[in-house]
């Protein structure tokens, strides 16, 4: 690795990146902590004394732990089933298994509302079938949130474990079998221990996403308090000092969870070499199971695509006509027609697209330079830069939003503040901050796959710094840049959690507009927006794939943080 040869050039790039990240990532967090201490410990005492805050903290942790359990309970067996067993319907099931993750956070919640809510299609269907006077269940409380989380977040566990199984050296299982280990001993003593790093990574992701989750508790919480919704409520009620305390507590819980997982991970670290080749899928032996497999697979596929279908169906419902029927009684293209013709309804779409584009472009430039510095340069401060880049990942979106609101609320050159709150630019900034770890980790993993001696080889052949950058480093970083940019753009287009804290009427994004339409009971319009959002997400994904050929799986896996 060629560090230190041109320290000036390195620092010429490192200093602006440090400055930008300190200013946009670290400073807001300091502002929040400072804000919480504005009146000494008074806000903290108020927090400690408030039963609702204590309830919020406990519930947040409870929801997160239960979400991890639910996601693991679904994702782990599914990963084993799809990687190790051959059955009719496997291909279709594999194809749709990751679909829930493609639902933007609020859209998933909306779809569940239409399906399993008190007046949802499934709920009413069961009620009608059983002749009940009331809805058979109410989609509120901890279990409702965990249900939604389990549906969207099991994908992390599934993807990580499936990738782990693919990397697992098949000869290890054979070696264990040859030494006399039966199926259970192989699973318990060989397969699961080797999957632990992948599983722990996925569980961490689910935990962090659940802890920062906002839309599910907001819509299904009922009277339930969790930290993220409590923060927004405190802010709206004017208790900004308490909101700062709650934000600090939420961020600290997330960082503590991260540290705990990392510590556990470090205790069992070994590289898994894939030399022996992955184990092959074996067919189902039992004839009964083999006969049942297609039906079971079909049921699972249906359950997985139902939310998407439901949103599509409701988007054709006439606003206001769907009241007590199981299915919407009237269908029309009105919702789409209105989206296309009414300026006010078109506005959020333009907002989301332009803000996502700005944030993603900034992510690409900043994260490429940061990843280049981290992977290919040796300089003092490299570890700090690595930490800065990863930091927004550890901080829930609500906390990021409150931090930005606390920092960029006035023009004050002396303290490095400029007024962005209430302007268009606050949301692109929020999206940018959330996108930094995603894009940076993707580019880092691409650059790490590059043989570092390529850079030396280019220089040895007389290439200038610029030529080396353009013809050697940038091409090596490209798969990661494409994958990272895609993920960042997809999350920005669907972003809700930070948006709902920071938006103004003028720059309101699609997600916030969906919520507004739901409040007006304009289900058709809300669903039409949701369909549009799904289409945008798919469009961006396809565009990135077409542009870059097949996406590197490892890169995609590296930094998916689409916290709901």
């Amino acid at each position, binding site marked *: 690795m060629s560090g230190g040869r041109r320290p000036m050039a390195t620092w010429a790039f490192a200093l602006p990146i440090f400055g930008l990240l300190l200013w946009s990532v670290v400073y807001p967090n300091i502002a929040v902590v400072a804000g919480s201490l504005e009146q000494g410990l008074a806000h903290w005492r108020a927090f400690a004394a408030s039963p609702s805050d204590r309830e919020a903290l406990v519930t947040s942790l409870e929801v997160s732990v239960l979400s991890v359990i639910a996601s693991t309970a679904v994702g782990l067996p599914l990963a084993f089933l799809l990687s190790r067993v051959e059955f009719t319907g496997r291909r279709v099931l594999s194809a749709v298994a990751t679909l829930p993750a493609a639902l933007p956070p609020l859209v998933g919640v909306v779809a569940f509302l239409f399906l399993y809510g008190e007046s949802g299609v499934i709920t009413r269907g069961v009620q009608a079938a059983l002749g009940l006077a009331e809805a058979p269940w109410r989609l509120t409380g901890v279990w409702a949130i965990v249900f939604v989380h389990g549906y969207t977040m099991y994908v992390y566990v599934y993807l990580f474990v499936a990738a782990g199984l693919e990397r697992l*050296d098949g*000869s*290890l299982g*054979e*070696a*264990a*079998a*040859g*030494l*006399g*280990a*039966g199926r259970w*001993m192989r699973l318990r*003593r*060989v397969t699961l*221990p*080797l999957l*632990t790093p992948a599983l722990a990574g996925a569980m961490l992701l689910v935990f962090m996403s659940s802890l920062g989750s906002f839309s599910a508790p907001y819509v299904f919480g009922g009277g339930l308090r969790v930290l993220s919704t409590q923060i927004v409520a405190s802010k709206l009620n004017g208790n900004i000092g308490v909101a700062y305390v709650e934000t600090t507590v939420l961020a600290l819980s997330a960082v503590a969870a991260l540290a705990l997982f990392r510590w556990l991970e470090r205790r*069992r670290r*070994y*590289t*898994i*070499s894939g*030399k*022996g080749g992955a184990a092959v899928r074996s067919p189902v032996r039992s004839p009964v199971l083999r006969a049942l497999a297609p039906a079971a697979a079909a049921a699972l596929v249906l359950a997985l695509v139902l939310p998407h279908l439901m949103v599509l169906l409701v988007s054709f419902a006439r606003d206001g006509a769907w009241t007590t029927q199981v299915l919407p009684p009237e269908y029309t293209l009105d919702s789409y027609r209105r989206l296309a013709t009414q300026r006010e309804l078109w506005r959020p779409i333009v907002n989301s697209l332009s803000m996502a584009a700005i944030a993603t472009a900034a992510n690409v430039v900043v994260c490429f330079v940061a990843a280049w510095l981290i992977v290919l340069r040796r300089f003092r401060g490299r570890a700090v830069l690595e930490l800065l880049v990863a930091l927004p990942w550890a901080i829930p979106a609500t906390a990021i939003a409150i931090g930005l609101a606390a920092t960029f609320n006035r023009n004050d050159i002396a303290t490095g503040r400029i007024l962005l709150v209430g302007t268009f630019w606050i949301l692109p900034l929020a999206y940018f901050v959330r996108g930094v770890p995603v894009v940076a980790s993707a580019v880092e993993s691409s650059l790490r796959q590059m043989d570092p001696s390529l850079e030396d080889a280019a220089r040895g052949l007389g290439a200038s710094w610029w030529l080396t950058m353009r013809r050697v480093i940038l091409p090596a970083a490209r798969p990661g840049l494409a994958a990272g940019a895609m993920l960042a753009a997809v999350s920005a287009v669907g972003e809700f959690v930070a948006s709902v804290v920071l938006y103004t009427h003028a720059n309101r994004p699609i997600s916030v507009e969906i919520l507004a339409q739901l409040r007006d009971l304009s289900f058709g319009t809300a669903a039409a927006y949701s369909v549009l959002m799904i289409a945008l997400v798919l469009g961006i994904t396809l565009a990135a794939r077409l542009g870059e050929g097949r996406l590197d799986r490892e890169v995609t896996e590296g930094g998916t943080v689409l916290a709901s």
Partner: protein
Amino acid sequence: MSAGALSLAAVSRRYPGAARAAVDGVTLDVAAGELVALVGASGSGKTTTLRIAAGYEPADAGTVTLDGRDITGLPPEHRGFGMVFQHYALFPHLSVAENVAFGLEARGVGKSARLARARLALDGVGLGEKAARPVQALSGGEQQRVALARALVIEPRVLLLDEPLSNLDPTLRESMRDELRQMLRRSRVTALFVTHDQEDAFAVADRIALLREGRLLQVGTPEALYHAPASRAVADFIGRGAIVPAGDEGTHARVTVGGVDQRVAITRPPGERAGAAAGIEVVLRPEALALTAADVAGAWRGEVRALRFAGASFAYTVALAGGVVVEVASSTRLAREGEPVGVRIAREPLAAVPAGPEAAA
């Protein structure tokens, strides 16, 4: 430990969608305590044969028996075999001792007992001191020995080894050959091992089974395969040497190269009678030939193309008149590259094989 006798009878295996069978009617007996090498080029079916013996791969036809008992359908965990994998397949999350103790754990041996036995097994391969280390801290040669200890500690009826030496660097490989044979001999285990390297097979095995395209070409001692190959394919694969057409004269053969005849005694493959084949070819091994001056009567004329110093001898590559290229071993330096030389047969008898389809052309 009781070594078992392993038999494969007409074992075949064709992978789904493959054009030809990976293993095609292989019959092979490995006596108790015997060391047999399965040798062949890549794609010859040797690893598939081994995996069928181990139970990792099903056989489409044929039977596998252990001491006369049919074990064809028995899963690997119930065969009681030991297996050493090409890349060792050591469990990365377990220590060296835990790896070795794994098979004992599967047999319900208590923790302290199995760790003590693992320790003994590790002492046996000279790694007792590294029992507590993580396996990834070991060198390739050490990992190989741990894999061997792990396979031997369960006192296997049969030990199967898949390319056990291929992952070692050349120097280590030479010394490990002898060590492997000694360790296997000492444990008196029945062993079947796969290698693409005949030197490995010569050094370790009592008998060699040579495979090509899924079929067994010949089974025999290393000397038999070298000096009495059953076919042109065996002669071609085993050892160095040129194979040239010859006139069949019963106990002798007339070898004509570039218009010059040399008459030599021959040995035929067992069961092959004079005049039975469409013609014969003889195998010209480097040590059976000698260089002469270019104008010696009765010697084939040629020119030295390349000269290689090989320690105890020089290896000359000589292009003979008539397009035949032979290798000649000589203990002295007699000629330089580009110089004309004569070549005569210096050691008899030569191995004769039935002419292959290549000779007819």
